């Protein structure tokens, strides 16, 4: 059922690292040219992008679960339709990100298998539970907000198919972000119980959202090459700071308190946040977050229980092909 790769690269040929080609490649990157699927690229570039794009795709698909958890309990018909449409958008993002990864020679099937086997990562944020309706507002407001901070620079990423996918994803994400903020605004202008629900959600999500930008710059292992290749244009800490600076006034507008009593604004106007608990981040990445097991189990269940459906579709397509061939022969 999975589509095949757009092109089947001649791996042997492409993997031969050639100093002259590598220099030419870097010159193209430096000149802000887009690299396209059939262009020569260093195997490390291909590998880095395949990893990053597929992790991004997995994040969209696993990310359907925490929000999907509230589709059947959305508190109004308008919210229910908006949430269902939003989760559907995420599925669409996953689909075109897998398609972008396939242009690098990987197949969706093998990438999905790696994720189901627990060998490929997805965003750590989706390993936290959604416990109230306010979590849906908070995810839109903060998680999508953080994703946008990360993804807007990716619209200028050196790899063409990824950059183009990001342009479309970012448009939809910013719509989701506004929708999330609007849920929060409604709660914060609502009853005392609703306000308390909103504050509780912010208290639980704030620190995990800051962790979404990845480890601090001094510890990040992938950044150097990614920066040289213009896959990454800002460091983790730079993006995190941009996000915090954009979010603090929004929280103030909502009348919510960011759960960081030590946070202060410096002379440059940046909000300086307290130390992040990177041990928690490492534990979640290592599989010990509150929902890691549930998320993978849900994806595996969908995959396993869907196997007979995919087999049926394949068997039927094959029967049809044979019948058509037979008719043509007659």
């Amino acid at each position: 059922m999975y589509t095949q790769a757009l092109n089947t690269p001649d791996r042997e040929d492409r993997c031969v690292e050639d100093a002259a080609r590598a220099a030419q490649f870097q010159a193209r990157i430096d000149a802000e040219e887009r690299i396209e699927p059939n262009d020569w690229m260093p195997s490390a570039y291909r590998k880095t992008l395949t990893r990053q794009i597929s992790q991004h795709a997995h994040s969209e698909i696993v990310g359907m679960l925490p929000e999907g958890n509230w589709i059947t309990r959305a508190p109004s018909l308008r919210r229910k339709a908006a949430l269902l449409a939003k989760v559907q958008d995420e599925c669409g993002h996953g689909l075109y990100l897998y398609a972008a990864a396939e242009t690098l020679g990987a197949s969706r099937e093998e990438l999905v298998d790696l994720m189901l086997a627990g060998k490929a990562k997805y965003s750590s944020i989706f390993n936290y539970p959604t416990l109230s309706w306010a979590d849906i507002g908070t995810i839109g407001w903060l998680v999508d907000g953080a994703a946008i901070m990360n993804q807007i620079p990716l619209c200028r990423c050196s790899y063409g198919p990824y950059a183009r996918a990001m342009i479309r994803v970012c448009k939809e994400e910013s719509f989701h972000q506004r929708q999330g903020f609007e849920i929060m605004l409604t709660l914060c202008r609502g009853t005392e119980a609703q306000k308390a629900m909103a504050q509780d959600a912010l208290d639980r999500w704030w620190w995990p959202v800051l962790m979404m930008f990845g480890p601090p710059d001094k510890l990040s292992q992938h950044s150097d090459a990614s920066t040289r290749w213009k896959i990454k244009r800002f460091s983790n800490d730079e993006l995190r700071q941009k996000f915090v600076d954009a979010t603090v006034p929004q929280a103030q507008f909502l009348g919510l308190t960011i759960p960081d009593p030590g946070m202060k604004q410096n002379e440059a106007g940046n909000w300086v946040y307290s130390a992040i608990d990177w041990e928690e981040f490492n534990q979640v990445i290592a599989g010990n977050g509150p929902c890691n097991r549930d998320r993978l189990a849900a994806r595996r269940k969908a995959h396993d229980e869907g196997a007979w459906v995919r087999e049926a579709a394949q068997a039927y397509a094959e029967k049809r092909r044979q019948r058509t061939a037979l008719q043509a022969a007659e």
Partner: protein
Amino acid sequence: MTVANISVSETPLVLYTLRRADDALILGHRLSEWCGHAPMLEEDMALANMGLDLLGQARELYAYAARVEGKGNDEDKLAYLRDARQYRNLLLLEQPNGDFARTMVRQFLYSTFADLYWRAMMRSGDATLAAIAARSEKESAYHVRHASEWIVRLGDGTEESHRRAQSAIDELWAFTGEMFAADDSERGLIEVGVAVDPAGLRAPWLKAVSEVAREATLDLPGNDWMQQGGRDGRHSEHLGHLLSEMQSVPRSFPGAAW
């Protein structure tokens, strides 16, 4: 603390509209349960699409029912503050998703009916219902196509898919008779040209369903006994669970807007 049921003055037109609104909401809700759990991502998209169409239909129908009733109810009160005995949907639509074959057979049986029904309702003497019918017909035509294609793939796919699809048809068949029934309340609307008589749609429905089933190498059951009661609020046990989940948030927060 909980929020109590509303009461609805079920004049024939209010009741008629509520029944169709409940159909769309309950099936749309069932489809939304798949989101994130479908057999393939393309089907996550398609099931959500159909669910969104149905939620859209439900919202228009509830809004119209509330307007006709004129007692200050609105789409959310009608959806969230009536209990199972006040719901008027077809029993077929509240049946649990089961496996993918069960979901697709349910969709196929209903959408084939709904498409015929809304097409006929486009000529309703009630301008609002005729407009809702025109929109709903476009959507249900796509649902019929999507579900029919799956019925054929599953029926004529593997041994396992055939067995599952056949079992779904056998299980759900007894819920199809209710689609073609009309009570006295509805008969009055049929007589004045506001509603159409669903009994007249039985033959074209059976023809359409039989054609797809034949291509799918599936048998239609011979049993004539049909379950009824959904239109009067006598439901299967499944609906109460669906509603208690769906309504849990608004029921728990008195005075809240969302």
